[in-house]
């Protein structure tokens, strides 16, 4: 019985492009592979920025509307605040030997994590496959994605 409850596959949906959300998603995907669990990421809505060649190196943390930043929203909106918070977080991330986004994507694909882009979101943002990273495994509809989630021990997580 216990064996049947094992996690076998993680299907992660990334819908946001703030640095903290992207890292949470990548660390979950990579952590799964390191445990011998399959993992796939479906990039949708703003999450697509994390696999857009021109954008992925410029992701930020959100300083407005994020109570856990402990910065009053009015100050968080001041010029330079996001850049400063982002710089601080990137420094911390580097100190912990967590790779930058571009290198992290290379690690994920080398580890066998599948990278999928959402078709509807691509149409919405006028994106073509050539705008996305070369390691992209393909463009999927929601139905295709659910189709890939079939099987015992699969979990779907929305970020």
């Amino acid at each position, binding site marked *: 019985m216990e064996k049947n409850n094992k996690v076998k596959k993680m299907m992660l949906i990334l819908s946001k492009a703030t640095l903290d959300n992207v890292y949470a998603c990548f*660390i979950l995907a*990579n*952590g799964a592979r*390191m445990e*011998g669990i399959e993992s796939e990421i479906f990039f949708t809505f703003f999450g697509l920025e994390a696999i857009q060649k021109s954008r992925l190196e410029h992701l930020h943390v959100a300083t407005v509307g994020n109570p856990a930043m402990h910065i009053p929203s009015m100050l968080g909106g001041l010029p330079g605040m996001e850049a400063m918070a982002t710089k601080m977080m990137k420094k911390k991330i580097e100190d912990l030997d967590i790779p930058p986004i571009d290198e992290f994507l290379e690690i994920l694909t*080398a*580890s066998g994590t599948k990278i999928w882009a959402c078709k509807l979101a691509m149409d919405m943002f006028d994106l073509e496959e050539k705008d996305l990273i070369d390691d992209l495994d393909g463009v999927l509809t929601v139905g295709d994605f659910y189709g890939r989630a079939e099987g015992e021990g699969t979990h779907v997580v929305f970020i």
Partner: protein
Amino acid sequence: MATRAYAGTNVACNDEGYMTNLEEWTQQVGEEIAKEEEVEMTPKHWEVISFLQDQYRAEVPLTIRKIGKSGVTNIKEFYQLFPNGPLKKASRIAGIPKPVSCI
């Protein structure tokens, strides 16, 4: 402290089967742990194992990123050499503690 018998000797191991004293490790011991992990060892495998042991002796915490930059193997090959949880498996065969990093 529990021990397990490998290659005719008793070696100290924790509950999860990771050796607790690298001094007790020999290639024969590694070979027998590899059998338990269902890994067929090749010279490439041993090269990686020896890299992991060097890192452990130098007190460098292991991450998948470090493996990628090791110059000994790359991440894709590492996953092929030690399928299903490569860093954990390789660490166990190398006689070093289970990696604690999430990345």
